[in-house]
C-alpha cells in the first residue's frame, strides 16, 4: 500500500478551553474521496480548519506528503497545495468572479493562470458568464461553484470541501456532486469531504468516517457505512 497523502494522528484542538477535537485519527490516500459525516457541532468543520492551521492542533500530528504541517501558519500550509472550499463558501463579496478566481491562484507560482481558468470554466460554465459580476450578487449555487472553482485554481493535490451541498436546491446539489466525482475520476484529485448530506456523501466516497462529539465513532468504506444500522438510523432515515 502507498503512503497516505494526509495523515492525522491523535489530533486534539480547542476553542479556548473547550475541546472541539478529541484525539482524531484519519488517513487520506492519494486519489481517494474520503468523507466525514456527523451531526451539527460534531467537529467536522473544526477538523477541516485544523488541517489548515486555524486553530492549530494542540496535540497530535498532521502530516501531508510526508511533511509535518501541524505547527505551520495557515498561509504556508495552503502553499503546499492544499486548498479548501470552506463552510459558508466565503466568497469575496465585493470582488468580481474573475478576481475571486485570481485570488484562488495566489499560491500557484509559475502555474499557467489561463489554462487553470479554462479548466474551471469548463467545469462550471456559469462562472464564465458571470465573470465580471461581483461575488456577492451570485446565487447560493453559483457561489458554491465559485468557491470550489477558486479552490481548484491553485491546482491543489488535496481538496478540502466543507458542506458543499448546504442550503442548495437538489438539482444544484446533484450538479456539484457530479463535478466532484468528475474531478476525482478524471484528474485523480484527492478529495476530503465534510457533509451533513450523509447519503450523497457516502455514495460518492471511497471511505468514510462518522464523527460524534469530537471523536471518530465509526469508519469504513462508503458502502459499509451506508449499510450500518446505527448510521442509517442516525443520519439517513427520516426524510432523505
Amino acid at each position, binding site marked *: 500500500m502507498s503512503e497516505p497523502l494526509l495523515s492525522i494522528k491523535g489530533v486534539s484542538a480547542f476553542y479556548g478551553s473547550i475541546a472541539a477535537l478529541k484525539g482524531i485519527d484519519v488517513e487520506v490516500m492519494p486519489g481517494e474521496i474520503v468523507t466525514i459525516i456527523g451531526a451539527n457541532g460534531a467537529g467536522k468543520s473544526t477538523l477541516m480548519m485544523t488541517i*489548515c492551521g*486555524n486553530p492549530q492542533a494542540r496535540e497530535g500530528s498532521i502530516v501531508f506528503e510526508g511533511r509535518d504541517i501541524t505547527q505551520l*501558519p*495557515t*498561509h504556508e500550509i*495552503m*502553499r503546499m497545495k492544499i*486548498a*479548501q472550499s*470552506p463552510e459558508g463558501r*466565503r466568497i*469575496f*463579496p*465585493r*470582488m468580481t468572479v474573475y*478576481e475571486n478566481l*485570481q*485570488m*484562488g491562484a*495566489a*499560491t500557484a507560482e509559475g502555474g499557467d493562470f489561463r489554462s487553470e481558468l479554462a479548466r474551471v470554466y469548463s467545469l462550471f460554465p456559469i462562472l464564465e458568464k458571470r465573470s465580471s459580476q461581483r461575488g*456577492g450578487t451570485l446565487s*447560493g449555487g453559483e457561489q458554491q461553484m465559485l468557491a470550489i472553482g*477558486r479552490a481548484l485554481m*491553485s491546482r491543489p493535490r488535496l481538496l478540502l470541501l466543507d458542506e458543499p451541498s448546504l442550503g442548495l436546491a437538489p438539482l444544484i446539489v446533484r450538479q456539484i456532486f457530479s463535478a466532484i466525482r468528475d474531478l476525482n475520476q478524471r484528474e485523480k484529485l484527492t478529495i476530503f469531504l465534510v457533509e451533513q448530506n450523509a447519503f450523497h456523501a457516502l455514495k460518492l466516497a471511497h471511505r468514510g468516517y462518522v464523527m460524534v462529539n469530537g471523536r471518530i465513532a465509526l469508519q469504513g468504506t462508503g458502502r459499509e457505512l451506508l449499510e450500518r444500522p446505527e448510521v442509517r438510523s442516525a443520519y439517513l432515515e427520516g426524510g432523505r
Partner: protein
Amino acid sequence: MEYFLQQSINGLALGSIYGLVAIGYTMVYGIIGMINFAHGDIFMVGTFIALIAFLILVAIGITAIPLALFLMLLIAMLLTSLYGWAVERIAYRPLRGSFRLAPLISAIGMSIVLQNYVQLAQGARVKTLQPLITGTHTVLDLGNRFVVQVSNIQILIVLTTLALMTGFTWIISSTSLGRDMRACEQDLKMAALLGVDTNRTISLTFLIGAALASVAGMMYLLYYGVIDFHIGFVAGVKAFTAAVLGGIGSLPGAMLGGLLIGLIETYWSAYFSVQYKDVAAFSILIVVLIFMPTGILGRPEVEKV
C-alpha cells in the same frame, strides 16, 4: 465671487492634506477594523523627518530646491513608513485576536508615546522652516481690488496628491498586492486559506498608510512652515473625521471627505469666524451621520448571507 474662488483654492490645498492622512485611517479600519489613533502622530513624525532631512541636506550642500525637495520626500516616506510598520508590529499585532477595545487603547498609548518621544528628542518649542517654494500666479483679475491667486505650493500640493491617489488607486485595483489587501479587507480568514500571508499584508497596509501620511506631513511643513510635537492630534482628528464623513473603509470616500473638511473649514473661517472652524467641520460630520450613518460613500454593514 473672487473671494469665494480664492477660498476654494485654499480649501482644496488643505483638503488634499487631510485626504492623504484620511486614507491611512480608512485603510487600516477596512482591513483590521480598528481606528489607528496613532496615525495623526505618524503624520507629525513625518513633518519632523522632512524638516530634519532638509536641514541635513542643506548642511551637506544640496541646495538646489527641486533636488532637495525630492530627496526630502524620499527620506520622509521611507523613514515614516518604518515608524508606521513598527507601531503595528509593537502595539497592534500582539493584540490581534484579543477583544476589540484592546488595540484601540494600545493605539491611544502609542499616540502618547510618539508625541512625548518627539517632544523629548526635538524639544517642545515650535520649529519653523522658511518658505522654500515661493511665487504665485494670478488666476483672475477683474480690475477691482481683489485678485484670485494660486501659489506654487498650492499647485504642488494638489498635483502631488493627485499623482499619489492615481498611483495608489492603481495599486489597489490592479496589482496582486492590492488584490490581497482587498481580500484581507473582505475576509481575513479566507484570504489566509488562499495562501495570503495576512500579517505581511497588514504590515504593508500600515507601511503605505504611513508613507502617504508622511507626504501629507511634508506638504504641511512646506505650506505652513511651523510644526511642533502636538500638531498630529488636531490633524489626526480632522483626517479621521474626513474618513468617517466619506464613509470609513472607502478609499474614494476618504479623499472626498478630506476635501470636504478642508473646504468647510476654509469657507467657515473666511465667512464667519476662524475660532469656530473646527466646530463647523464637526457639526457637518454630525449632520451627515444623522442622515447617512455610513458616511457619504460608505456601504451599509449588512451583506453576507
